[in-house]
Each structure stands twice: as C-alpha cells, then as structure tokens.
C-alpha cells in the first residue's frame, strides 16, 4: 500500500528510511566534473567502488524526509519538559544567531593564534565569568561534556595527590549520584566506595567519616543533590575529607539552583564541573553537543589540561608548557560553538539576570511541589531547591507505576519527568520545571498530573495502556535488545 493512500496521516507517521526512498542516480548536490578523474591520481587498488546502499535522493526529498521526522519529536519549543537534573530551559534564539557568525563558525583551530584573537578573548573571558559564578579560581573549557569534565576533574585530583605522595585508590560516591560519577572514577583508575544518604535525603558528615581514610582520593558530591535537596552539611563534610588529605569534587549539574544563592567555591569544593547545556542554556540537540568546563581552586591550577589561554600585553596566547598538567583531554579547544552560546547567555543576563534565573527556578519547583503533594507521595519532606522528587507509592495501590504515569503524560501533551532516578527512590518521578516556564504552564502540568492520579484510582487500565496519541505506541524494547538490529541492510535477493 502506498504511503499516500487516503487515511495515512503523513504528519504523524514515520517516513520510510532514506535508504528505502529515492531512485538510482538522484542527488541533491551539484558540482561539475573537474579536469582529470581524481581517482587516477591514487593507485587504483586503493579505491573503492560505489558505496552500496548509500542514499540517492533529491534535495526537496531530503528536506521533506527530515521535516517529517522532526514532527515526530517533542522539543522545548513545542512542549514543557519537566525533566529532573536536566535543566531543560529555553535556549535563547540570539545565541543561535551569534554562534552562526562566520567569525565564529568558520574558524580553523590551527590558524595562528594572532588570527583568532577574538575567539581566544571570548574563551578567556568565559573562563573568568564561570570562575566568578562558581566561586572557583581557574576554569578550563576543554571538556566536551559533563562526563568528560568529571574525568578531567578526577585526573586533576589524581595528579595533585600523586605529586603530594601517592594518587590513592578510592573515590566516595553517594547512592544518589549520577551514573557518570562512578563510571568516571573507574576510568580514572579508582575504586568506587558508595555511601548511602540519610533518611532525610542528605549525605551526613559522620557517614563520610566512617569510610574516609588515607586511601580515599576524593568525595564526589552533587549539590543540590539529585533529590533537589541542598546538602546542608557540605562544609562539615568537606572538612572531614580535607582532614584526611582528600579532595572534594562537586558535580555541578544542578548549578541552576545556586547562582547568587551559594557559591560552590565557598562550600569547601576543590574541583567542579559545569554543564553548559543545563545552567547556561545551550540546546540539548537530542543528546549533545554539550560542554563541561571544569573549575578548580588556585592550588590546582598547574594540573589543568593544556593548552591554557594566557593574556600577555593585551593579547591572548596559547601555552602548553605546564609540566604538571594532566595533558590534553580533547582535540583543539573543546566545543567552541557551545562556548560561544554560553558566553552570549551570560552577557545577556548579567549578574542580576543569573541570580533571578536561579530564584525563579526555585520558585517554580516549590510551586509545583505544593500543587502535586496532595496526589503524589513526596520522596522526602525536606525543602526542595530547583527540582523535587515524588514516588508512585500512592498509585502503586492501584497497580499503576511510574512508567505508566510517564506514558500517560504524553497523551496530555507533556514530556514526562525524569523517571526511576535517583535509584534510591523506588518509582521516582523527578521534576525540574526551570525558570523559563510561566505560571499557566505549571498549572496546566499540575492539572494533568492530578488528573492522572485520579485516573490511576478510577481507571487504572487506562493509565497502564498509555500512550494512545503518540506516533507509535509503547515499543518492544526487549525485542530490540534480544536481537539487536542496529542498521538498515538491503533486502536479500
């Protein structure tokens, strides 16, 4: 049956794969042949034949394909995304416009430094601005994402401890941490010691003291933690760690709660990373690119990755000759295009705007918490910062689980919260509205959630069968994992 038969809703159904459409000989690219076949200049035994199965489409066909695909996606500009610990705030348009200036987008990283002074100035200033916001002494912009920032930060810690005496063996990570924390620790050659949070959802200094010894290199903490709770004891905890010669690492994923409210640098933190695609508004892009700058206290400066940008007689120079440096963690200068967007965001908001952003993020989260606490069980009664965590405990009585609530939300036109994370909360629903949402949308979301809570009680099967209105229904993930089909292949004759 043709895709164009009556009754096929092209706006809501997936197009065929690019490999399944088109026609031999078609291309969306025009370039006349140039003198001499290029191939002749390379020995023929090094050349391939045509790429079998490669697409052959016209330009309009290509655009229709991807435009139709785009209609199958949720996105910030069409829907509210209350994803906890992801900070899905509005991605300002002006950032996109300036990042596309040829003076940024068409720069070559190996051009002589004197020909990229504007770029180096931007990077230098961004380092300083991020240092000021986080209360750290120095910042490197090289890491390509938060997880690479974590790895870089841990490498800095390892290099520092190695210089002091030995790099030590262990990293302490709370049970509420992002999965990247333990994964980065392993990659840096450390063993992970997990500690549990208290029944108030916080790490306790006494608990840290129990496992803190001369073999522990660092404690990794997220503040506010992934429950949206401020780790009040952080200064006391830092003291426990420092006393035994360890360092304190802060996962800055939740910095959006802290601007103008508390600086990590004042909390006893020695190293932190910042996710620019969260707090500093750069687009998520469906899973990257991001950027994960790392900030350190002054005693760790010499261990930062190279190259470092220094200001000398009014111009900017690149230096690689730091003997103690951990080395290079990414090619060139990191995700420069993302750094440009974050820079534009910071100068757009300025001090006042950044501080207001965090305040409104807290206001929105606390407002939603209040509106939902009747119908859903809060995981912890502690005051929340920029996000709050509920559970499906009340709905479980009717056989309705967090996954069902999440899928039912799709029918109401909302992206679900982060679900089943943090792992310490059974059936977690983690909600982070961000500051860029208005009161009306928060009300509408709360109404949807409360209505689903009613449905769970009165028509549990309705909730368990959701979603009903999405382009595809619940997908068979077990089938995908049992017999992985990871690429298209031409049909066998």
């Amino acid at each position, binding site marked *: 049956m043709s895709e164009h038969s009556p009754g096929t809703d092209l706006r809501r159904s997936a197009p065929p794969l690019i490999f399944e459409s088109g026609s031999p000989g078609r291309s969306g*690219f025009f370039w006349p042949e140039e003198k001499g076949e290029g191939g002749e200049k390379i020995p023929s035994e090094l050349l391939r034949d045509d790429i079998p199965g490669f697409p052959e489409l016209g330009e309009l066909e290509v655009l229709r394909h991807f435009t139709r695909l785009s209609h199958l*996606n949720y996105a910030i*500009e069409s829907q509210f995304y209350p994803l906890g610990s992801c900070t899905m705030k509005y991605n300002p348009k002006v950032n996109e416009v300036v990042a596309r200036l040829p003076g940024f987008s068409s720069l*070559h*990283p190996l051009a002589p430094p004197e020909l990229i002074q504007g770029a180096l100035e931007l990077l230098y200033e961004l380092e300083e601005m991020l240092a000021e916001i986080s209360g750290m002494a120095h910042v490197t912009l090289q890491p390509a994402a938060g997880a690479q920032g974590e790895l870089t930060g841990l490498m800095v810690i390892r290099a520092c401890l190695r210089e002091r005496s030995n790099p030590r063996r262990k990293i302490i990570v709370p049970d509420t941490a992002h999965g990247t924390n333990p994964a980065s620790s392993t990659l840096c050659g450390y063993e992970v010691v997990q500690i549990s949070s208290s029944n108030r959802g916080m790490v306790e200094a006494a608990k840290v003291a129990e496992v803190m010894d001369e073999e522990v290199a660092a404690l990794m903490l997220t503040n506010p933690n992934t429950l949206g709770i401020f780790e009040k004891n952080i200064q006391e905890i830092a003291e426990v760690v420092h006393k035994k010669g360890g360092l304190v690492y802060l996962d800055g994923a939740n910095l959006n709660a802290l601007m103008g409210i508390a600086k990590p640098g004042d909390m006893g933190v020695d190293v932190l990373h910042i996710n620019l695609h969260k707090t500093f508004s750069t687009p998520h892009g469906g899973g990257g690119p991001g950027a994960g700058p790392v900030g350190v206290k002054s005693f760790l400066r010499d261990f930062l990755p190279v190259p470092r940008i220094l200001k000398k007689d009014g111009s900017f120079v690149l230096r690689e000759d730091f003997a103690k440096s951990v080395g290079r963690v990414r090619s060139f200068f990191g995700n420069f295009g993302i750094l440009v967007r974050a820079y534009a965001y910071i100068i757009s908001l300025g001090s006042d705007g950044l501080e207001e952003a965090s305040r409104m993020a*807290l*206001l929105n989260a606390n407002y939603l918490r209040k509106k939902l606490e009747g119908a859903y069980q809060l995981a912890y009664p502690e005051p929340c910062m920029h996000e709050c965590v509920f559970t499906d405990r009340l709905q479980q009585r009717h056989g309705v689980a967090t996954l069902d609530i999440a899928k039912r939300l799709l029918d109401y036109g909302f992206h679900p919260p982060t679900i089943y994370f943090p792992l310490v909360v059974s059936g977690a629903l983690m909600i982070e509205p961000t500051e860029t949402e208005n009161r009306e949308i928060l009300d509408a979301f709360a109404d949807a959630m409360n209505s689903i809570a009613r449905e769970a009680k009165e028509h549990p099967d309705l909730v368990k069968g959701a979603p009903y209105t999405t382009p595809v229904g619940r997908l068979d993930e077990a089938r995908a994992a049992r017999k992985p089909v990871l690429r298209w292949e031409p049909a066998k004759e």
Partner: protein
Amino acid sequence: MRYTPHTASDKEQMLRTIGLSRIEQLFDHIPQSLRERAAISLASGLTEVKVKKRMAALAAKNATPEGWSFFLGGGIYHHAIPSTVDAVISRSEFSTSYTPYQPEVSQGTLQAMYEFQTLMCQLTGMEVSNAGLYDGASATAEAILMARRIQSESRRRVFVSRSLHPQYRAVVSTYLRNLEDTELVEIPFDRNGGTDAEFLAREVDEKAMCVVVGYPNFFGVIEELAPIQEACARSGALFVTVTTEPLSLALLKPPGAWGADIAVGEGQSLGVPMSLGGPGFGFFTCRKKFVRSLPGRLAGETVDHEGRRGFVLTLSTREQHIRREKATSNICTSQTLCALAATVFMATLGKSGMRRLAEVNVCRAHDAQGRLVKDAGLAPAFTGPFFNEFVLRSKGLARSQSRFAAEKIIPGIPLAPWYPELQDCLLVCVTEMNEGEEIERLVRTFSGD
C-alpha cells in the same frame, strides 16, 4: 527579566500558594555563611542589540575564509555545506529536544540516529556503528579502551603510529595515564610518510593489545593497510584505524575492506562547520561481535504493540546510567545534533555527490601539489599517495611569514612543533573551497614573485 516570565503578581500568587511571603524564604535553609558571599560580580545584562554588537566585535577579530585564503586541514576541514543541513538542524524539534529516552515522542531523533549508524557503516565498510562520541581524539581513546576490555590481561601493549594526529596521541596518553597496566608504544613512520611496517612486523607480538593507525594519516598519506592488518592477524592484536577526513572514504577502499576490527574518527568534515574545531563528532564503528563492549549510545529497530516499526535506544545496560562503575564508558552524550548534520549532509550529496566531492578534492589537491613542486620549487616530504593534504618542505618558511600575511594567505600548518624531525615542513590542505585563483596566489607567494 530576560527569559523569566514571572510578573510581580505571578510571584506573589505563587509564593502565597507555597505558603511564603518572600522569595528569600525559599533558600533560608542554606547556611548564612554561604548566602552572604554568593552575590555574582559581573556586568549588568545587555539588550539583544548590544549582545549582537559585542559578539560581532569579537567575531571581527578572527580570520575567516571569507577574508583569508586557508590551506588548513590537520583534522578540521573547510568544505561546502549544503543549505539543507543548517535548515534541518536549526529546526527546534531537533535542536531543543532531549536525549530520546521516551521513544514514543522521539521517533524523529531515533530514526535519524539509526540512519546515521547505517551511513557510517556503509562509509567505513564496518558492521556496526554507535550514535556518536565527542570527537575523533576521544573516539581513538575509547577504541583503545574497548580493545582493553576485549583482550586478555596478558595483552596490554598499545601500538600507536607516530603518523597519527599528534593531538589524538596526546589525548590517548592522557586517557591511558591512570591505567597502570597499559603501555603505549609509538611506531615510527617511514619515507612514504606511512607507518613503518618493518617495525610493526618486528615488535607486534602476543603481548600486543591493538595497533592504531591514521587512514589517511596526519600527513595526508593514504596508509598501506595490508601489512598492518597482517601483523595484527598474525599476533592477535586488534586493528584500529582512525580517519580525520571521512570524506576520503567515499573514494578510498574503506577500513572494513582492509580488515579493520575497529574504525573510528572525526566526523566534522561531513557537514559540520569548522567552529574552531568543535563541536563536531567522533564516529565509532566495529565488528558486530564486539557490540556488547561498545561505548556510547545505540539506536535499534523494533515494533510497537500494533506491529508498527519504531526505534529505541538499546543495549543500554552497557552504559553509565545503568551499569555505573562497570559501564563500558562514562560518556552520556552522543553529539546528536552534529551527527544529524552529517546524516543530512550525506543524504543530500548521496552516492554520486559524495564521490564527486571526494574526486574534486583529490583533483585540486594534486593539482596544487604539482604546481608547488614544479613552479615554486618545494620538495614533497613524503612519497606516499595522498587524498587532499600533503607535506612540503620549504626552506625559509619562517622568513616568508610576512609575505603570506600580506597576501592574506594561511599556507598550511607548520609541523615542527610536533615533529622536530620535520623542520621546515608544512602540511598543506586543498579542498573544493580553494578556487584556482587562490592556488595561483599560493604558488606565486611561495615562489617569492
């Protein structure tokens, strides 16, 4: 305030709902000692007009190919990008969407990922591809870490060719530094500018974990892979190729056809702006039997309850959010939007367009190299075949700097900072963006006319 829609009355009503009267009460549980030092001392916010002015002023201090003639490659390439690419990746449905953990409302991203994986497999001739990594350098490091997971503990020696991109080698050494059982060995290059096969044949033994070579390598040379593959097969080492200019694979026999076990690289040249070297994306392809050891995300095909085809993120148990300290990698992004750009780029050019563009690169680069040798008297540093980059020796390179600056030409990348043995050597890259007139001026300026 910018981007926060709260009016005074919104704030008041919301606070009342919460049961508070002042915003500050929302965080009065935070220690006073922290709060009193928290003020941010930066400039005040700017209007959009002023933001654009400031950004334009910074941008104006940089040299772009609009004002300058670039002959720069070395891992980042200046190529024509069809307008379809930015049109698609600018769509907010792609750019402002989240990682597709909720497949019912992410089929756009997921299907594009699946198409990307297929395209990368076709281009590299490999069996499976992930959805993308940060960049070519970290993809190289991840390839070595994957080889480490696959190989037994008796194989912990990593052979990396000196003709591999120096920054990639630097990143690899950073990543491996803290894994104390793993040793890095550098393979020298020969007169062709390729990996020294005799050295390999001699040194690669039953302790070898993997052998890593550039294809084409940092000197632009199309490496002879058959002897390297043989050395790997004989000793049981895994054969890893790294490609920084994947456009070349539209024309060259791909890594898969040479028997590579893992083929990685940087994808920027496939439709992503140079952007000072980032963001681009790392690509990562390998044999199917290694799929459980693969780092990064994977999209896979499945069906919904009505039997409709759909795509999901799959084999997630490899990843950090489930396996934590035992994950195959700590990575949790896939540079998705850049990978999408590459998908649109390859779909637009298609089978014939990719080949044509690769041929034009070969044609112009060889033409320019010939002229520089014949008319400007420069000497080729190596004899191996090349794609769109080549190394020339030019005595007095340093002295001619000002001449090039006056002509607004950046003639290439001096290699001496990374290779002291290659004094006076310049890595010159010529793509379809370098018109004949530019090449004329390059030749003239080198000749000193």
